[in-house]
C-alpha cells in the first residue's frame, strides 16, 4: 500500500502542508461546524511545537516520500467525542517502522524494542489529541478523549473514506517522517443496553436512575465504570458513542 493520509506531498511548508483531502471533502468541510473553525485549519501547524517539546528535538513540516514507499507502517489513533454537540474527531499518527524506532529512541533516550517504540508513538497521538482538545475550547467544543489504539492502515483508509472532513500534515524528526491526520467522522451515537456497555464507550447523555444522576454525559467509561453501570442500570437503553474499533478489542 502507499500512504493513506490525505496530504499534498508536494507541500513543503506548514501552511501549505495542511490540506483537505479532495473537492468532495472540501464541500462537506464547508458545512461541518468543526471543520469550519480556525482551530481546525491550524491543527497541523499547532501540533508541531508540543511534539518537538515531547521529543526534545524540532518537529517540522516536510514533504517526505518515505511513507509512500513503505509497505510497513504503524498507525495509532485516538477518538475525541463532544457528546453535547454530537461531534467526533479521530486524531492519528502514521509512521514507518524506522520512524517509529527513531521516535522511540528520541523520546526514551535509548534503543527500544518495537513494542516500546509503538508505546512512544501512542504518547505522540496522546499529545496531539491534547492539542485538539485545547484548540477547540475557545470554539465552544468540549471533547472527551479516548485511549490511543493501534489500527491498521486499511482501517485508517476506511475512516478517511467515511469522514466528513480530513486534514493532515507530514512532519519530520530529523530525517524521519511521520504523518498526523485529523478526521471529523459522522456522529455515531447509538442506543445500547446498559449491560452491553464496556470500556471506551462515551455517554452521549446524562445517565439517571429514578432521577438521580449516576454518570454525566461525556464520561468515557473505564471498565470499572462500565461494570458499575451494567450492575445498576440493567435493562436501561443508554445513548452512547462506541469506542474506536481497535480500542474495543
Amino acid at each position, binding site marked *: 500500500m502507499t500512504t493513506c493520509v490525505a496530504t499534498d506531498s508536494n507541500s513543503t511548508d506548514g501552511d501549505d502542508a495542511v490540506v483537505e483531502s479532495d473537492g468532495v471533502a472540501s464541500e462537506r468541510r464547508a458545512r461541518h461546524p468543526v471543520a469550519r473553525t480556525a482551530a481546525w485549519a491550524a491543527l497541523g501547524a499547532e501540533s508541531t511545537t*508540543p*511534539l518537538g*517539546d*515531547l521529543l526534545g528535538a524540532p518537529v517540522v513540516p516536510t514533504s517526505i516520500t518515505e511513507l509512500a514507499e513503505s509497505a510497513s507502517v504503524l498507525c495509532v489513533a485516538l477518538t475525541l467525542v463532544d457528546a453535547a454537540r454530537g461531534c467526533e474527531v479521530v486524531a492519528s499518527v502514521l509512521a514507518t517502522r524506522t520512524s517509529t524506532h527513531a521516535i*522511540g529512541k528520541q*523520546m*526514551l*533516550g535509548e534503543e527500544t524494542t518495537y513494542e*516500546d517504540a509503538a*508505546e*512512544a508513538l*501512542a*504518547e505522540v497521538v*496522546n*499529545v496531539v*489529541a*491534547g492539542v485538539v*482538545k*485545547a484548540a477547540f*475550547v475557545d470554539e465552544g467544543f*468540549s471533547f472527551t*478523549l*479516548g*485511549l490511543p489504539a493501534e489500527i491498521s492502515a486499511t482501517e485508517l483508509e476506511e475512516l478517511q473514506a467515511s469522514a466528513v472532513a480530513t486534514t493532515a500534515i507530514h512532519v519530520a524528526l530529523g530525517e524521519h517522517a511521520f504523518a498526523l491526520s485529523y478526521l471529523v467522522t459522522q456522529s455515531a451515537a447509538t442506543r445500547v443496553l446498559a449491560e452491553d456497555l464496556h*470500556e471506551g464507550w462515551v455517554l452521549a447523555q446524562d445517565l439517571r436512575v429514578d432521577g438521580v444522576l449516576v454518570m454525566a454525559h461525556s464520561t*468515557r467509561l*473505564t*471498565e*470499572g*465504570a462500565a461494570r458499575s453501570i451494567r450492575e445498576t442500570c440493567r435493562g436501561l437503553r443508554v445513548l452512547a458513542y462506541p469506542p474506536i474499533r481497535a480500542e474495543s478489542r
Partner: protein
Amino acid sequence: MKILIVDDSKAMRLIVKRTLTSAGYGGYTIVEATNGREALDSIKVSKPDFVLSDWNMPEMSGIELLTALKSNNIKVPFGFVTSETTDEMRERAKDQGALFLLGKPFTAETMGQALKPVLNPA
C-alpha cells in the same frame, strides 16, 4: 521516601522517572502502577509520599482513583500529569483535592515547579 507513578504507558512512566531525576527527585524510590485500580491497591500497601498520575487510563482513570482515595479516607498528596489541560479539568482535579495538573509535554523545570511547593527534592 516514595513516589508512585501511575500511567498505562510504559514509555511515559520511563519519561516521568527520568524527568523526576533531572528535577532533583532522583533520591526517591519510584513505585509504578498501570491504572487507577492497580494504584489504589499499591497505595494501601506501599504508602507513597506522593502520587503522580495520568488522567486517562483503562480500568480506572486518574480522577476515579482520586475519588476512590477520598471515599476510602486515604490521604496522600496527589498530582496529575496529563495531555489534557483545560480549565474545566483543572477545576475538577482541584475540587477532588489534586495539588496540580501538569500538562504533557513537560520539562524537568515545569515538573520541579509543580512539585517543589509540596515535596522536597531528594
